[in-house]
């Protein structure tokens, strides 16, 4: 049994007086896909930002392949190269083309030379099916395309785990499919992922475990079947009901989009 990729131990985080995370713990093994979901304000995004130490927690520890990254004196920049992140609002670098967006991390942080970096970047963009748009600026791409570039940017760094912060929440409905498809492919090829999302169809398809976060604590956790067949707590039941009304059933979301849309 190998060391879990990520181990989160008793995480506490507050902003000013507001306690956002109150003692969250979980583990993530190799090739696992964990889906974290819950009502807004429950601290899901904060949790992800704690994991890659963009906003360090007040209390608690995080271990990346056994290395305690909450330790003082750890080179966070190096650590972050092993944690990929995909943002809700894409956060692509507006002044760079797609290919440069993906390669800049490789060049400036990992120190690769231009050709090597561009080759790897092209590979990543290919994996997300954006090979035809490598020379486009973010503003020339649709939301779904931008997010796929964002995923490629994280992929290119060959991280140990990729963190997805509500990757499809800011997308128009018809564009969600293409991004989910890419994420499904990644999951199926064994990428270790933590995904914060409302897309329960995705969760049902590939999640190894689902975690329901409510008001800063883990309220319930289990396999997707557990949640969809017999969730225990009332809060979870209510939430799932609301989502079903809003998003429809999950089967439709899993249909692959037309090839023409690419």
């Amino acid at each position: 049994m190998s060391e879990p990729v990520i181990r989160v131990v008793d995480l506490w985080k507050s902003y000013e007086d507001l306690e956002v995370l109150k003692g969250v713990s979980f583990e993530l093994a190799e090739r696992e896909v964990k889906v974290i979901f819950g009502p807004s304000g429950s601290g899901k995004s904060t949790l992800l930002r704690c994991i890659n130490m963009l906003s360090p927690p007040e209390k608690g520890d995080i271990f990346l392949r056994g290395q305690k990254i909450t330790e003082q004196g750890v080179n966070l920049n190096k650590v972050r190269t092993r944690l990929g992140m995909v943002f809700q609002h894409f956060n692509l670098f507006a002044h760079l083309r797609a290919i440069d967006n993906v390669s800049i991390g490789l060049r400036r942080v990992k120190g690769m030379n231009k050709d090597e970096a561009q080759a790897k970047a092209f590979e990543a963009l290919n994996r997300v099916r954006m090979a035809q748009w490598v020379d486009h600026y973010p503003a020339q791409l649709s939301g779904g395309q931008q997010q796929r570039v964002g995923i490629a940017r994280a992929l290119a760094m060959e991280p140990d785990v990729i963190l997805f912060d509500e990757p499809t929440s800011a997308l128009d409905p018809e564009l969600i499919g293409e991004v989910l498809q890419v994420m499904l492919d990644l999951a199926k090829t064994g990428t270790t992922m933590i995904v914060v999302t409302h897309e329960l169809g995705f969760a049902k398809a590939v999640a190894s475990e689902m975690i329901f976060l409510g008001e800063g604590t883990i309220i319930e956790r289990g396999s997707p079947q557990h949640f969809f067949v017999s969730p225990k707590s009332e809060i979870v039941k209510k939430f799932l009901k609301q989502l079903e009304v809003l998003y429809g059933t999950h089967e439709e979301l899993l249909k692959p989009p037309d090839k023409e849309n690419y």
Partner: protein
Amino acid sequence: MIAMFFQTNLDIITGIVNQLLMFLIGTYILRWYIKEKKTHYTNVWDTSFKTAFIVNLIWLIINIPVIIIFDFLFIEDTLVALINTGINILIGTIVVIVLYKREFRESLLFVVVIQLALFITSLVLGLLISIIIGFIIDKNYEIAYFILSVGLPFTLLLTALGLLIGFMLGISLALMRVYGGIELGWLSNGYEKIFRGIPILVLIYIFAFGLSDLFWFIDPVQIPLASIVLALGLRSGAYQSQIFRGAILSVNPGQIDAARALGMSGSQAFRHITFPQAIRLAVPSWSNEYSVVIKDSSFAYVIGIVELTKAAYDYSYAFRGTWALSIGILAILYFLLTFPVTKIFGERQTRKLKELGMGGS
């Protein structure tokens, strides 16, 4: 006529062209206004245009004899023009009221304002036309050439140095305010407030006469130059610091998060992500600053430096009677120096930025 305000040679032609233009413009204004008021749209063009045409024709016809009469009486030019305007306003008002009675009485103010605006416009047009005619007769080219050759070097020098000093100061202050701590922020803020609040003339005098001991290391002859460069630079620094600060802050902070998530350090993120975008975002405002500095360089004239304004001043002293013309040409020269720059680097750049999706947080 109205153009006789200015000491130009071609008053009559100018005046006539002026009056015709005023006639056309007046017609269009009244026609537009009448169209606004009508609620049914049949024959609007006909009726309104006819009405407007008549109104302005009456106006034009009454104008000419008035001028001629006053001319014969040799009354002061200015007085003539003023009385002319008064009569115009009066007539215009009466005509509109008589023709449209109750409906338009509420817009008496409107008519008066329009006539006043027309008067001012005719002044401006009169000058423009006389300048254009002056260029046709070739005299104006001499003036322009003189002013440019004598004054341009120093104007450009002052502008360049002022902008340069302002740039260095501006960037440092902006960085201090955005990334420095609270104390540096206060320092930067205080500097901005002070150097934006002191009139540039006062600043120049402080340096030139008050602090001349500061310039012990400079040849005394150059003190005026040094003091104005310093004044321009310090002032520009205050404004440029605002420009750069705004630009830095308007780079989407989410991109910084993304950069750090990739593993970039703070300074790397600044160098590769914030700075390239901030510089592009700053261009429109910076082109505006260029325009401001080059206009402020005209204050150098008070301490005797021969830049464009002083050159125009000297010329008009040498050739008495060309005041209006030389200042007019001076204004045009400044305009040619500023407008293209602000147009290209201002609006076009803003449009390009919008296309690239930058400049929105």
